[in-house]
């Protein structure tokens, strides 16, 4: 009996099984969307809020007694120990007890002194009209800050204080006033570090969320550009801006992104890299499924195609979803140049991917199994150079690849200028010396160097990393079974890639499954011919521009026609 079951188990591993129904997220077509949105909204129902007056201050209620609120905040911010928290009590108009609270360093002192404290203290004739409307009056007439709002939930005021707002409370009220006084140190807008361009805008995101959203808004001056904020991380409480264009993006994507963001129940979410790992579809693959970019223009163009951008406060990157493999191979450079140039750049880039992934493996396969493929003269040259090298080719390749990776890693870690120098010196001297010492053959140095170049030509850093890892799988396959082995690994890689999804979009879509393209996949059409948005993300508005987007060209043609007709008439008259 035992034996039978083990055989059964064995068969169950390799036999076909009915696939389990998983409620997989997908982006609905536009006409079936109503149904889907309802489904999605069910999953993320928002708790209806209840407000009731109370005396005790706790996580749900704001007390009408000032002392209770002060104690609540003290407790919350661990006050006497925590020196960052500042609370100042004073009398508004000389008679009403009040306090402001803020975190030192996060706020702009000038704003607090001149535009909150001074008006409140100098103000004299406050009409007596009930506690709650008193604060209302202050909000409307006295406070001189640009942003100030009523906050009725203790959690919100705590968050407000944490993010640099100043909290104002007047005794007897059941809510706080949150005044915008953010004033911490931040970096200016600088040039992109990893996505530099020859032609095109030279600004990058910085660590400030507001600045980042503004950078996008400056490029898209559209009322439909919407920014929603979601807090992520139980302790870090990082603010995430979810940016999209209403009316273009498929609402299901927005729903799904917000559902995933709010569904994160983690202590620490720092920056886009961590957030990416929390919300991505396929965690066990080396290839990223969410695009991370530091360029506002690139983000804007993706938003206009109907994608969503997530910007995490504190990191100079925007996460863009859903994306396909093709998006990782693009840069804004191609769009800024004329289309033939753009197409060529992309072809070179695809070639670079193949070189970076396959070249060492192809070399091993050719030298070990398929010698008849090498031109005889070259083969004799390779052998002559390899005569005194005592290692098998695979070992040589691994040795060189590893030392190349070592140089690269060291180059990144070594500070500043020395890093670059080390890269060049290391590669040159190590390679030259290795050849002279008969540890590797010179052809191999070329192979490894070209592979490295190919890797650097891949525009996305994450994909470049993925290719570096996959390369070793190819080397392994080639060493075992030659080109057949490379073929097997290639099949496996493509199978894995086509199985991946990015927010419901198949990772290789447009190519597989095939959808209509926007004329901007590998070969670029001229910009005025790119009339449609990518089909695979089901945007609400499919058309980007009408068939004739250059009206003047049509006018030219018409006037030419009219002229011809006129000429014809004149000829007839004559």
């Amino acid at each position, binding site marked *: 009996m035992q034996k039978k079951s083990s055989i059964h188990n064995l068969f169950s591993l390799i036999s076909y099984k009915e696939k389990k129904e998983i409620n997989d997220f997908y982006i609905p077509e536009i006409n079936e969307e109503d149904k889907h949105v309802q489904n999605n909204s069910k999953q993320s129902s928002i708790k209806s809020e209840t407000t009731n007056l109370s005396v005790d201050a706790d996580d749900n209620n704001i007390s009408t007694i000032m002392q209770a609120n002060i104690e609540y905040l003290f407790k919350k911010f661990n006050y006497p120990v925590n020196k960052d928290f500042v609370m100042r009590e004073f009398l508004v108009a000389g008679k009403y007890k009040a306090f402001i609270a803020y975190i030192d360093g996060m706020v702009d002192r000038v704003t607090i002194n001149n535009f909150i404290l001074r008006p409140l203290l100098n103000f004299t004739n406050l009409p007596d009209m009930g506690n709650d409307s008193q604060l209302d009056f202050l909000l409307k007439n006295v406070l001189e800050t640009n942003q100030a709002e009523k906050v009725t939930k203790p959690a919100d005021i705590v968050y407000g204080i944490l993010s640099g707002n100043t909290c104002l409370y007047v005794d007897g009220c059941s809510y706080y006033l949150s005044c915008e006084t953010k004033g911490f140190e931040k970096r200016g807008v600088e040039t992109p570090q990893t996505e530099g361009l020859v032609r095109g805008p030279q600004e990058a995101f910085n660590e400030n969320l507001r600045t980042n959203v503004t950078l996008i808004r400056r490029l898209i001056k559209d009322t439909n550009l919407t920014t929603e904020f979601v807090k992520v991380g139980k302790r870090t409480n990082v603010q995430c801006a979810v940016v999209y264009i209403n009316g273009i993006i498929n609402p299901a994507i927005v729903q799904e992104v917000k559902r995933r963001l709010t569904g994160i129940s983690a202590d620490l979410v720092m920056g886009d890299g961590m957030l990416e790992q929390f919300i991505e579809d396929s965690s066990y693959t080396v290839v990223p499924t969410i695009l991370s970019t530091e360029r506002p223009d690139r983000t804007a163009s993706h938003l206009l195609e109907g994608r969503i951008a997530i910007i995490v406060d504190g990191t100079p990157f925007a996460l863009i979803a859903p994306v396909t493999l093709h998006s990782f191979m693009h840069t804004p450079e191609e769009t800024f140049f004329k289309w033939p140039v753009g197409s060529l750049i992309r072809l070179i880039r695809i070639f670079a991917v193949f070189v970076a992934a396959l070249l060492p493996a192809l070399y091993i396969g050719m*030298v070990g*199994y398929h*010698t008849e493929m090498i031109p*005889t003269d070259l083969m*004799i040259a*390779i*052998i*002559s150079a390899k005569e005194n090298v005592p290692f098998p080719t695979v070992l040589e390749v691994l040795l060189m690849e590893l030392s190349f990776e070592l140089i690269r890693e060291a180059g990144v870690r070594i500070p500043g200028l020395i890093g670059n120098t080390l890269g060049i010196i290391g590669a040159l001297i190590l390679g030259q010396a290795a050849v002279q010492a008969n540890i590797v053959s010179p052809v191999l140095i070329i192979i490894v160097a070209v592979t490295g170049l190919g890797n650097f030509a891949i525009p996305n850093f994450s994909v470049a990393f993925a290719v570096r890892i996959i390369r070793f799988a190819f080397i392994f396959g080639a*060493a075992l079974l*030659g080109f057949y082995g490379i073929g097997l690994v290639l099949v496996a890689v493509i199978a894995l890639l086509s199985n991946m999804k990015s927010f419901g979009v198949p990772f290789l879509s447009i190519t597989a499954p095939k959808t209509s393209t926007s004329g901007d996949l590998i070969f670029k059409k001229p910009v005025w011919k790119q009339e449609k948005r990518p089909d695979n993300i089901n945007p609400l508005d499919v058309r980007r521009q009408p068939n004739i987007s250059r009206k003047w060209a049509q006018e030219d043609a018409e006037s030419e026609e009219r002229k011809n007709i006129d000429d014809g008439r004149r000829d007839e008259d004559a």
Partner: protein
Amino acid sequence: MRKSRLLICLLLFSSLVLSGCNDLIEIDEMIYPLIIGVDIGVENKVRMTLQYPTYKGVTGGAIGGGGEGGGGGGEISKTGELEGTVITTIEASTLLEGVNLLNIAVSRRISLTHTKMLVFSEEFARKGVGEYLAPMMRYRETRRIMHVVVCRGKAEDFIKTNKSTIGASATKSMELMVTQSENSGLFSKETFIDFYHDILSPSQNAITAYAGVNDFNNLSQDEPPDNPPLNEYYNFVPGEVPRKGAAQREFLGTAVFKTDKMVGYLNAHETRYLMMITGKLKRALVSLEDVNKPGYAIVVDKRIGRKPVIKGYFEDGIPVINIKLNMEGDLGAIQSRINYDSMERIEELNRMIEERIKKGVERTIKKVQKEFKSDIFDFGYKFAGYFDTIQEWEEYDWHKHFPEAKINVEVEFNVRRTGVMYGSSPILDSDYEE
């Protein structure tokens, strides 16, 4: 469940790891003979000669550039070293066994994946090569696109002169030498796979390039006569061409096979006609004697204009072959300085060349039909269609009927370009005949 899954993965993986690498042979653990020569053996069936590189050139590329690889630069040494290569000879019962047998002395595995040329001595070829080729064909490593050559004299002697006179690479020299067939049409080239196919084919017969070793003693030492004759026909056999130079081996003409035995050869001139019919002639510079002014030559750069149209049919049971050749060419020179390039006389020139070609083609086919009885023009394929099955076609035995076939040749020739000169004016010399 999880464990057993892991186990299965591990087993599959280890089967890869343990069985893989089995065929991997490091590139430098092998030697690659560049040329194989086959002679009739004395103590055993065959005597084969191999030439392989010694890898002694430090930078590669140049195999023993400038005598670096031993052999004293150009001359073959007693140990068989020649310009970075080694020539070695052994007797064996078959070719493959001979390759294996060499490993008693050669320290690396011998691989035939880079062999450029297979040379048979004429003596050997006339006895029949089929039984030796079949195992070579079956062997995975044999390079299918190596060229087959029949040489006058011994193949061993031919290989001993096989060195590069231009550049350092013997390989390149061999590869480029064979492609000269396309440049001149003076000798045929045939790859191993085609050769083997032709031997077995019921519809055609095989050819190879014909080669020889020139000892440079053929230039006549006599005083030149006052008026040497204009000899249109280049009727030499390889090895006897009057010339001097560095490279001793020379390719000229075509060796003709019937089944797997060599039955004769076509000279350079006839080879060109053969290549015209098979549509392989890319370029041939020929000097024709001017009919209107004997003793003077017209130099024409001939090539095939359109693919030759060959039709075959049966008339009273006799196969009839219609050949339509469309040739074209450029004028190289008109020594007689007759204005053939004018619109009036260009047709006259065309007719003149057409006549020559027609005569040449007819003569060549007749020679092959009569002397060799071997269809090297691939005419058989035009008749195979008249038979319902291959068996019937094989029963009909084309090789028996080819010699009785009737041939009609039709040639069209057009001069396309007259060169960078229009018209020719006479050289003003009182002694010059007008």
